[in-house]
């Protein structure tokens, strides 16, 4: 379990991480979602002691990272797959980690096998690796000590679709065995297919967090009917906010309430469901709009309460 409390990091006058509090629970995959520069990597670096926090704490199973006697056996970390000595071979990088952790040498071969790096590829210097290969090597390093906690910064970067699928299954299996998985991404689609819980960060602040199901519910209801105008009037009467999608309405209420309103108005529905990915995507864009570099500031959209 990872517990982050009131974590703040300032650089001069700039606040990169601003009072971040969240918990990544055991047995679950927690997605750490936010646009570029939102403070995800800084938060993760603080967790593993590479960056000192200005204030606040980050604990792993109740202990600071520096208190772990042999961190590689308890926490698997992948922050930047390219941060390796370019002149070492992939196998050598794993061997160094294996020796530091005090593991048997066969672990190196087991992990190379697990991440599908061939012996020939493992013998190549990392300078000649593609980003996808580096990412696989980084994941192998993180998993080497069979840790119970994984902290992965943008692990899907550079992986091909098959690789992403492979990683998703791997992390799913890890969490199902009781492991704690925290992975960051700036891509919603990447994370929503795997995460159980979501922590959304924008401009250094947590803007939303909860289980994926909760956040999906909060994203509203999609309702489709041939008689859009009648339903729209009924919703207006009921004081429920909604927006128009192509031949449907996206309503900011749960499906139960929308169904009742439709029944009362005598409108036949062709579809009624919680707004899924598309809704979450909208939420993500909205929640992080303040931090987006390319926002059209046509509305003073207030980021949702943290």
């Amino acid at each position, binding site marked *: 379990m990872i517990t982050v409390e009131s974590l703040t990091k300032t650089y001069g006058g700039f606040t990169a991480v601003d009072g971040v509090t969240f918990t990544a629970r*055991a*047995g679950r995959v927690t997605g750490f979602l936010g646009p570029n520069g939102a403070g995800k990597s800084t938060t993760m*670096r603080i967790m*593993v*002691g*590479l*960056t*000192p926090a200005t204030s606040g704490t980050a604990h792993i199973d109740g202990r600071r*990272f*520096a208190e*772990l*006697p*042999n*961190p*590689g*056996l*308890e*926490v698997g*970390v992948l*922050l*930047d797959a*390219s*941060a*390796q*000595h*370019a*002149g*070492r071979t992939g196998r*050598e*990088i794993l*061997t*160094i*980690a294996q*020796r*530091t*952790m*005090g593991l048997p040498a066969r672990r190196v071969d087991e992990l190379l096998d697990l991440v599908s790096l061939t012996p020939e590829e493992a013998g190549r*210097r990392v300078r000649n690796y593609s980003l996808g290969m580096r990412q696989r090597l980084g994941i192998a*390093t993180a998993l080497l000590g069979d840790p*119970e906690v994984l902290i992965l910064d943008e692990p899907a970067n550079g992986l091909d679709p098959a690789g992403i699928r492979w990683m998703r299954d791997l992390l799913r299996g890890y969490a*199902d*065995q*009781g*492991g704690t998985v925290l992975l960051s991404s700036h891509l919603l689609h990447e994370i929503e297919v795997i995460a159980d819980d979501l922590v959304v960060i924008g401009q250094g602040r947590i803007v939303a967090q909860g289980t994926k199901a909760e956040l999906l519910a909060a994203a509203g209801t999609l309702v489709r009917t041939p008689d859009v105008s009648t339903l729209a009037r009924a919703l207006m009467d009921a004081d429920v906010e909604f927006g128009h999608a192509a031949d449907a309405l996206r309503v900011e209420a749960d499906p139960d309430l929308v169904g009742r309103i439709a029944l009362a108005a005598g409108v036949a529905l062709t579809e009624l469901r919680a707004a899924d990915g598309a809704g979450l995507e909208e939420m993500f864009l909205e929640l992080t709009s303040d931090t987006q570099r390319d926002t059209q500031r046509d509305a003073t959209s207030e980021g949702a309460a943290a």
Partner: protein
Amino acid sequence: MTTLTLEHEHEHEREQAPVRVERAAPAPIPMSRIVAVEARKSFDTRSGFWLLASIAITAVIATAAVILWAPDDELTYASFGAAVGFPMAVILPMIAILSVTSEWSQRSGLTSFTLVPHRGRVVTAKAVVAVGIAVASMVLAFAIGAVGNLVGTTIAGTDVVWDMGLDDFLYIVGANVLGLLMGFMLGVLIRNSAGAIVAYFVYSLVLPSLSEVLAASQSWWGDLRPWVDFNYTQSFLFEGGFTGEQWANLAVSGGLWLVVPLTIGLWAVLRSEVK
């Protein structure tokens, strides 16, 4: 039917609950292991390997040069010792610098300092390895020089002269270890390969001549020099024999040039952000 449902529910419960067993807390990483890993890291790259290989290679070249070009009456062990010692003074500090700076320049520190989250231990292990390499290199180089002395005198038909004692050897080793530690200090302080190497050459090649010029024209500097010019004070080590005052000179100038900046550098390493 009922049993089946129950069983199914049980299975479901088990799926929800974490099944990992509590594991015993791992033993802390012993210092010896960190030193062994750092030793491995110093020659597992092409550049690291050739840097170490160059110690033996340059020692052989220097020895061969003495045999080929030195006058017969200078074919003594001291000549060979001086010849093989010279490249060491350049290569050893480079090894020390790169062992530290590559963690930042190559960014491998991201892994090193998360596997061992006590940076002081990693840096100490690097220092131990660097000094170990220095001592081993000197032994190897002087052994090559000794072979050269035997071969050279045999070819020239002169008597073999062993005009260098153990204490001479220890002084030279000491001087080279200090040079290496200067490189190590600059690596820790600057944490950038190119920057630290340039700084080392400014320190070891530019500053001595400036100091020399200044001492020639300003008598106050001439008096002060042994106390503040670390290079100058160290040079006596190569010449063997140290008086009590020279030891004091070495301690004071070493404190100024080595201990103080190293302390500042270590403080910065422990506090800095590894990106």
